[in-house]
């Protein structure tokens, strides 16, 4: 069964460093998403991406964040200068074509980002 994969599973970085979190969505999916979950808190939507551009973003997704689909398979989230409060589990998701509203999002296992 096709699945969304994410690398690395755990990333430790120093405050102020740049990090890139990588995701490989399901191959025939067209919509891609990033979410984060701070420990003990709810899952928060960050950004959605379609047709090589951001379709929607939350207030969390400020200028420190960027997303890219550098090739036909990867979908990346870059945090330019990490802060302590960026420590969280980051989930990538993808969904297929069709009626967007009813599309199930398939989630990856997550990348745990720890900022020291």
């Amino acid at each position, binding site marked *: 069964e096709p699945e969304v994969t994410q690398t690395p599973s755990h990333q430790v970085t120093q405050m102020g460093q740049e990090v890139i979190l990588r995701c490989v969505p399901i191959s025939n999916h067209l919509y891609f*998403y990033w*979410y984060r979950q701070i420990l003990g*808190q*709810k*899952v*928060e*939507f960050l950004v*959605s991406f379609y047709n090589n551009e951001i379709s*929607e973003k939350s207030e969390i997704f400020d200028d420190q964040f960027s997303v890219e689909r550098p090739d036909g398979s990867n979908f990346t989230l870059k945090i330019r200068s990490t802060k302590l409060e960026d420590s969280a589990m980051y*989930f990538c*998701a993808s969904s297929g074509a069709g009626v967007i*509203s*009813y599309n*199930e*999002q*398939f*989630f*990856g*296992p*997550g990348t745990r980002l720890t900022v020291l």
Partner: protein
Amino acid sequence: AQSVTQLDSHVSVSEGTPVLLRCNYSSSYSPSLFWYVQHPNKGLQLLLKYTSAATLVKGINGFEAEFKKSETSFHLTKPSAHMSDAAEYFCVNDMRFGAGTRLTVKP
């Protein structure tokens, strides 16, 4: 704007008894409602989704949810809880997650 409110942060039931996890939604347009489950240290798995084809939606593992527009609710139920159901459950409207309900199942 789309949002959801999960009314209980923690629900505890005994094995074999019914489960009810409550979710109310708010939508400026037709809602896109989902229930996801997250087991400890695992990713998010879809339990079921509302597609407007039917108000009673059946999902995996014996779960179902009923869409009630008049009550703006999409509560998740299961007739008989199993120990393996212990997890965190998230109601989702569009891309907005509720705060989650932690389900504990006692033997």
